[in-house]
């Protein structure tokens, strides 16, 4: 059955479908619609909704929910995201799952209240202590919000590591057609780590959860080095979860790389370009980490040129860094960045016209 809804709500319905039973966050524009959805839909269904007093608190309250055995989700936006790294680092260290929806707005600092794609790096190259990795998934439509939040819960539990859904209000605030179809995942057998009082456990044994494996020796991780090796191996295995989409890439000699709303824009540009006889294509990363280096590397080898389209400061970093790593010096990379927005105000966005203009420049077409 086709419905019309906004991505914010699709995240909620998808979470419900995935068996999420605890949600905690702190309101901040533009994620408030998500908070409101959970506040409205969770309590009547007997699921836990808690509005916290700050984002730092959100991350640790979520840690408590997860440690107690709940399938937990939180959401935030850029200014609140800056308060999450400490909590994220501890949750990673304790090997706990969590789904985090991060809505990007203009930054840094208080920034703007409208969309951006400026948290690419702090999501894919996490800012908390210890040098860890999280899987980052970037939906670009309402349907993908619904589908990928379900995938996120599964991956979070599969790897016992937080998974980030990275998006922005151009994707989540827009009303679109979608279908609420449940996705089936092969969840791992219920983990034997949740706390609930030792009498609840089938073996009656007490359990310990800690984020300080360099301070505490456990049966599972007898030494800090054994723990680091375990984490390292886990992060390497997570690389198998790479996902991406290719659009008209086969014979393309210029390849756009984009995710989220700029991928929607780029699809439009590819269509227009093709209509004008330009062999353009789009590689759309669906997971930003692990990054789909392979298809990009392949096209670089074939001699294609690249146009990275991201509402970010591409000359400083972001998606452009990962594309450069993948290209490894074999091809030209051009950028469409936040400096190419159509309007100087906070509502400025990247429009197809600008992207097409740069595309033509690459091809030497006036």
């Amino acid at each position, binding site marked *: 059955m086709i419905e019309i809804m906004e991505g914010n709500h699709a995240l909620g319905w998808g979470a419900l479908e995935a068996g999420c039973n605890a949600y905690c966050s702190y309101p901040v524009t533009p994620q408030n619609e998500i908070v409101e959805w959970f506040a409205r839909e969770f309590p009547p269904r007997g699921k836990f909704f808690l509005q916290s007093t700050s984002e730092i608190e959100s991350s640790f309250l979520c840690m*408590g929910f997860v440690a107690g055995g709940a399938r937990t989700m939180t959401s935030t936006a850029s200014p609140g995201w800056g308060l999450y790294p400490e909590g994220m680092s501890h949750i990673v260290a304790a090997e706990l799952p969590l789904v985090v929806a991060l809505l990007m707005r203009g930054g840094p600092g208080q920034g703007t209240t409208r969309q951006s794609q400026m948290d690419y790096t702090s999501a894919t190259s996490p800012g908390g202590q210890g040098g860890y990795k999280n899987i980052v998934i970037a939906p670009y439509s309402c349907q993908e919000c619904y589908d990928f939040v379900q995938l996120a819960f599964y991956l979070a539990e599969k790897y016992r590591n937080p998974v980030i859904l990275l998006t922005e209000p151009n994707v989540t605030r827009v009303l679109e057609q979608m279908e609420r179809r449940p996705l089936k995942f092969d969840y791992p057998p219920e983990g034997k780590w949740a*706390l609930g*009082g030792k*009498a*609840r*456990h089938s073996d009656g044994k007490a359990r*310990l959860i800690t984020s300080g494996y360099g301070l*505490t020796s456990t049966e599972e991780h007898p030494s800090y080095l054994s723990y680091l090796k375990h984490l390292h191996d886990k992060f390497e295995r997570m690389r198998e979860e790479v996902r991406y989409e290719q659009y008209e890439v086969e014979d393309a000699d210029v390849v756009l790389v984009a995710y989220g709303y700029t991928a929607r824009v780029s699809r439009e540009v590819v269509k227009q370009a093709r209509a004008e006889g330009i062999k353009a294509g789009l590689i759309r990363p669906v997971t930003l980490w692990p990054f789909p280096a392979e298809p990009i590397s392949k096209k670089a080898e074939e001699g294609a040129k690249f146009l990275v389209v991201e509402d970010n400061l591409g000359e400083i970093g972001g998606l452009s860094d990962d594309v450069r790593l993948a290209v490894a010096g074999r091809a030209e990379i051009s950028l469409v960045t936040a400096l190419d927005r159509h309007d100087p105000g906070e509502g400025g966005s990247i429009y197809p016209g600008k992207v097409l203009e740069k595309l033509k420049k690459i091809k030497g077409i006036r």
Partner: protein
Amino acid sequence: MVKKVVCGKPRLWRYRSTSLPFCPGCQHGVGARAVLETVEELGIEGKTIFLGGGGCAYPLPSLLDLDAMQCPNGRATSIGSAMKRLHGGETVIITYQDDNDALAVGTEPLIHAALRGDAITVILANNAGYGSTGWQMASPGDTPVPPEMDKPNPLFPINIMELLAEFEGVSYLARGTVSSANDFEETKGYIKTAIAKQMAGAGFNLVEILTACPARWHLTPQESLKWIREEMVAGLPLGEFKNGGGN
């Protein structure tokens, strides 16, 4: 006849060696013992979750035969609030946090757990200082040796009882010491009442235990106990501060 433990290690300690990772004269072991004996006597070890905080008491959760968690500094209250919602009356959530944890980094979580009336039991082991980071003075102030570290910042003591007693969601507040057998029994009584409140779903409760830190105070263990009795108690009086209220 009620059997009472008068000596010996609580059954719930599971460390192998005879010694604890605490300084001589430190009372974290005694404070934890008060909690463990109460848990044993109430027969609730199967449903208790012990959440330890940061600082010197960090190793505690790994030494006990209870479902336990080593929480980041200041956050045991938040983690407990969340777990309590999940498990409700099926579990007893006890946190063990020192003053650095609960009254500094952790004030936001503490105050809001109390405001929400979350039915958890917070054991606040107040040893007037930050032990494991080199003995800085902590917010509760008032120490026997004015530490050179905080001379520029005279800290006024915080009486958490006065602050929390106002909150509707708080059902029980008490402060005790573990400086003598009598004090120990009295404090155990407070802990028992607090846990009973939790089990009755009666809101947030907290028992503050004034504990010694001879290493940091530059006193002998006996002098430390004397100092608690004579100086600390003068600023942080003992007894029950609230008994009633909560959800």
